[in-house]
Structure formats: C-alpha cells, structure tokens
C-alpha cells in the first residue's frame, strides 16, 4: 500500500553532534538559504563562513534560488550527510515542514531563519511585513516633515513581488505610509528593482513620467543603490533636503551613502552590521549544537533603524 513513511527509517539516529562536550568539538553544519545572489545574504554568510572556518567546523552553505524543491533536496542531502545542525531560511515554509521533521527525527538540530515553523529547534524570526512597516514609518515621518496635503510627496516604490518576503515588505511599506502620512503623498510608481542596474533604469523612467519624484522606498539594497545613483546623477550630487530613499538591508554601501549625505536617508537592518548578525547566528549554532535547551522556540530579532544619527557607529564595524 501507499504510505508517505520512508521504509526502514529508524529515526533518531545517533549523530556525534548530539553529545554534549567541550566547545572545541568539531561540528557539521548545513545551511540553506533563499539566495546568495543578494548583497545582504552574501555579506552575512560571508562572515558566517569566516567564523565557522575559524572554529574548525565542517560546513556547507547553499542557496536554493527561491525554489523549494531545490531546498528540499538540500535538506535531504544534509540529512544523508549526518550534519549536526541544519539552518534553513525557508523559500516556502509550508513546503519544508515535513522534511525538517525528518531531519529532527534523525536527531539533527534545526534552526529556522525568518519563519515561525513547527518542526524546528528554534525559529529566529523576523516579520517582513513589520520590517516593511518600519521602512514605511521612516519614510512617512520624512514625508510629514517636508510635505503636506497640497504639496504631496511623490513616492516610487522599488519592489520585487516575485519573492514572497519582498512582497510582504512592500505591503508593510504601503501600510505604514497610509497610516502615518495619509493625504500627504502619492505613490507614482511601483516597479521591480532587485538589482541596481534595473533600479537605475526604472528610476530614470519614473522620473521622466514624474519629474518631481523625490522619495523612494525600496525593499532591499539593490533598489536603494540604483535609485541613489539616479538621484545623484539628476541633482549633480546636491541632494535637496526633501529628497530621500528609505530601504532595508543596511549594507555597508548604504551606510556609507547615508554618512556621505547622499539620497539614502535611512535603512532598516537588524543587528547593525553583517559581522554582528553573523556573530549572533554562529553563537546560536554553537549553543544549539552543544545541546542548550531554549525556553522559547521563537526568538524574535529586533529591528534596527540606521540613519544619519547612528550610521557612523555601525559603519565602524565594517572597517
């Protein structure tokens, strides 16, 4: 008869990582995230890699390119490879619940990034709608400061609805704008811009249609960088006070733009820098693999708004 149980799977196989011991033990870690074709992920996991290398662990960092079938394969392969910990940034959480369960059954610790999932040891979560909302809040406050009902701010949104979490961010941005700056603004364009070149091209065109577009909200670093380049070119580097870009990711390049007084006004990040994020992540890995029991399955990450007031401070981390 048909079952969905793997035959002969004994479950709860003993793997070396489940024993508790000294922190100089070597661990085997498998990481699968949505995409490495993205400055934020690449930056953070570059650091994570350095840290793990320093600790002498075995590790594999993979991207599934927004494809849950690929991600499932990767999880399956990690299980085969008897890793001690799987960290997954789900491309689609529903798709991988069953497979994470199999991993847990095999005695592997599971850490989920971003989503609150059932079959995991801990979930390190972040609410993308809320992140978007925070971006939107920054933008809305800026709008209220510089614009009014009879001098409406023209806002362009750099989106990428092809990716669900980025769609959530866009939703959050729009919600915050509507709640806080209602009546003082008008969204003139919502165009895709994951990478800087597309963002630049689209921004140029948007400014053709609406020459007085001065505010951009972007779901990520690419849209920020491209839009910033477009504004810088248009104004010859003299960014007026009522012009601004509000975005996510808070990468080094964005922080530098903020410090340099370019169009980028604020970017919402988390721990402050890639390095800090990586340290937090690797710390969690280690605690998990050493068998520490966490009181809560869900650990919520705080959001951090970086603007001209604190950018220098966080930038120092990169130097």
């Amino acid at each position, binding site marked *: 008869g*048909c079952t969905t149980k793997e035959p*002969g799977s004994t479950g709860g196989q003993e793997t070396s990582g489940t024993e508790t011991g000294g922190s100089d033990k070597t661990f085997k870690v498998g990481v699968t995230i949505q995409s490495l074709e993205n400055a934020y992920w690449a930056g953070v996991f570059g650091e994570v890699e350095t840290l793990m290398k320093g600790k002498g662990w075995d590790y594999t960092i993979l991207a599934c390119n927004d*494809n*849950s079938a690929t991600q499932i394969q990767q999880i399956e392969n990690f299980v085969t490879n008897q890793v001690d910990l799987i960290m997954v940034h789900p491309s689609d959480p529903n798709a991988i619940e069953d497979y994470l369960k199999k991993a847990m059954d095999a005695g592997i610790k599971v850490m989920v990034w971003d989503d609150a999932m059932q079959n995991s040891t801990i979930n390190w979560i972040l609410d993308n709608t809320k992140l978007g909302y925070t971006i939107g809040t920054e933008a809305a406050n800026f709008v209220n400061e510089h614009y009014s009902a009879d001098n409406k701010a023209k806002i362009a949104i750099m989106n990428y609805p092809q*990716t669900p979490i980025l769609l959530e961010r866009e939703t959050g941005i729009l919600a915050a704008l509507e709640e806080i700056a209602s009546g003082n603004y008008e969204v003139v364009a919502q165009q895709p811009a994951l990478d800087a070149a597309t963002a630049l091209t689209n921004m140029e065109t948007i400014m053709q249609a609406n020459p007085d577009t001065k505010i951009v909200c972007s779901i990520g670093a690419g849209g920020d960088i491209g839009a910033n380049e477009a504004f810088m070119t248009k104004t010859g580097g003299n960014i007026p006070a009522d012009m601004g870009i509000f975005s996510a990711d808070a990468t080094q390049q964005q922080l530098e733009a903020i410090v340099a007084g370019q169009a980028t006004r604020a970017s919402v990040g988390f721990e402050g820098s890639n390095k800090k994020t990586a340290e937090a992540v690797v710390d969690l890995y280690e605690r998990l693999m050493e068998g520490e029991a966490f009181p809560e399955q869900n650990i919520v990450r705080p959001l951090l708004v970086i603007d001209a007031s604190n950018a220098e401070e966080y930038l120092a981390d990169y130097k």
Partner: protein
Amino acid sequence: MKSTALNIIKEKAIWMVFVALFLVFAFANPLFVSSSNLFTIARQVAVLGIASIGMTFVILIAGIDLSVGSIITLVNVVGAYLMVNSGFGMVSAVLVSLLVGMLIGVLNGFLISTIGISAIIATFATQTVFKGLAYILSGGTPIYGFDERFKIIGQGYLGPVPVPVIIMIACFALGSFILNKSYFGRYFYAVGGSEEASRLSGILVGRTKYLVYALSGLFAGLAGIVMLSRTNSAQPTAGLGYEFDVITCVVLGGVSITGGYGKMSNVVAGVLIIGILTNGMVLMNVSTYMQLIVKGIVLALAVGFDSLQKKRATT
C-alpha cells in the same frame, strides 16, 4: 569488430562519465553509496527525469522548449489554486493542471509550426507570458494546504520504492516506447533529420510538431505535479530556470541538438549525472558558488568528452 567497439564507446560514453563521477563521489564520501542516499537521489531526480522525456522529443525534432520551467510553475500554481481556492477534488485538479501544461505545449506548437517562429524565440515568449500569469494567479505568494493524500504522488512509497521514482520509471518506459515502438516516434526522428523529406514522405510535419510540444507540455506538467506534491505548497518561482537543467540532461544524454539522433536510455544517464552531481557536491560540502563552477566544468567535460569521441569515430 573494431568498429563495433568504437560504436559502443561512442554510444555509451555518457554512461562511462556517469560511472566515473559515481566512483569519485563514492570514494570521497562513503555515505554517498548508502542505500538510503541512493533512494534519495532517485527521488530527487524524479521531477527532472519526467520533464526530460518531453524535452527529448523536442530536441529530437531539432526544436527546443524554453517554456518548460514556466509550465512547471504554472501547473504548480494552477493545481494548488484549484485544490485550495476552487474546491476542485484532487484528481480533477491534477487532470486540469496536466491539461494546462499540454495546452501551453499546443500553443508553442501553434507559434512554431503554424506561425513559423523559431522554437527558441516562441518558447521564450511563452515562458515569459506564463511566468507572469503564474505570478498573477498566485498573487506572488505560496499556496498550500492540500488534502493529505496528495502527498503520496511525490512523497509516498510503494513497498520500498518511492512513488515519484515509480512515476519516473513509468514515464521513461513510456517515452522509450513512443520512440521505439510507436509510429509517431518514428516521425520524430524523421522530422528531426529533414523536415522537407519528411513532408514529402507523407508525414504531417506540422501535426508532428504540435504533438511533440504538447507532449513536452504534458510531461512538464506531470513533473510540476510531482514537484508540487513533494513541496506540498505551490510557489510562483517553482520552475524558474528549470528548462536549462532539463536541456542539460537531454544533451548530456547525447541527443543531438540539431535533431534526428538520440536514445532515451542515454538520457537516463544524463538525468542521473545531474542527480548525483547535485547530491554528491552537497555531501562533499561544496559551497553554492563553487557548485556553479563545478557544474559548468562537468557539463563542458562530459559533453566535450562525448563530442571528441564522436569526432574520432567519424573522421
């Protein structure tokens, strides 16, 4: 005698590549040859294998189908949508989804055969359109929450054998049957060899093309259903870029990109190579970036080895 040996080498070169690669991974990590891992690989290649059958037909008639990835995506989204939002039963949702896959294939056939657009452009256009449609239909977010039984297709077992593997084997058997035993399979080789000569031999070339692209759509659709059941949630990015994995398998399997030559059995080798490569690299802790490089190099080496063998055999 000598020529037979040469022919065997020429015909089976890709299996040698497969064996070599298999041995490399087996030595590198003993876990690779564990029976559970071998079953895992088989399960993992099922989707690829199923889609590669239709693509084999397409490449045999000297065509190409770049819409396969989008068909997989759309079938995912449509199937899920019907089950979750439209109250369709599991069976009827699957059937409608397969029909959608096939109809996109028919549309490709129309553009290529009736209008006369080159296959690469026609299927690129449909790829783009249906990618957009899948996004619109899903609103860009995953659709999930299917009947538990739907999982059986992609995750179930029949005795010790995973159901998707059984489906793949059945499909390969069917594909092989079409190519070797059915009369229209003969037409595929003929049309791939020379359209004009085929037409003058009484083959309805246009109809054959419709059939081939419809079959490609149908197999891609089935692959999409298996994928959907494996992931148990439909993503609007499900099949993104999948067509190139599929084409790679078929070409690794020695099907001539200029049409007319190729065997289903070697395509199986192509599929398995991609399967063990993906699996083996993860077992060997190869990073994502490095995997790209290794994949590209293996592809070039495998196809290059094959090309050189054939060159040697003919001159």
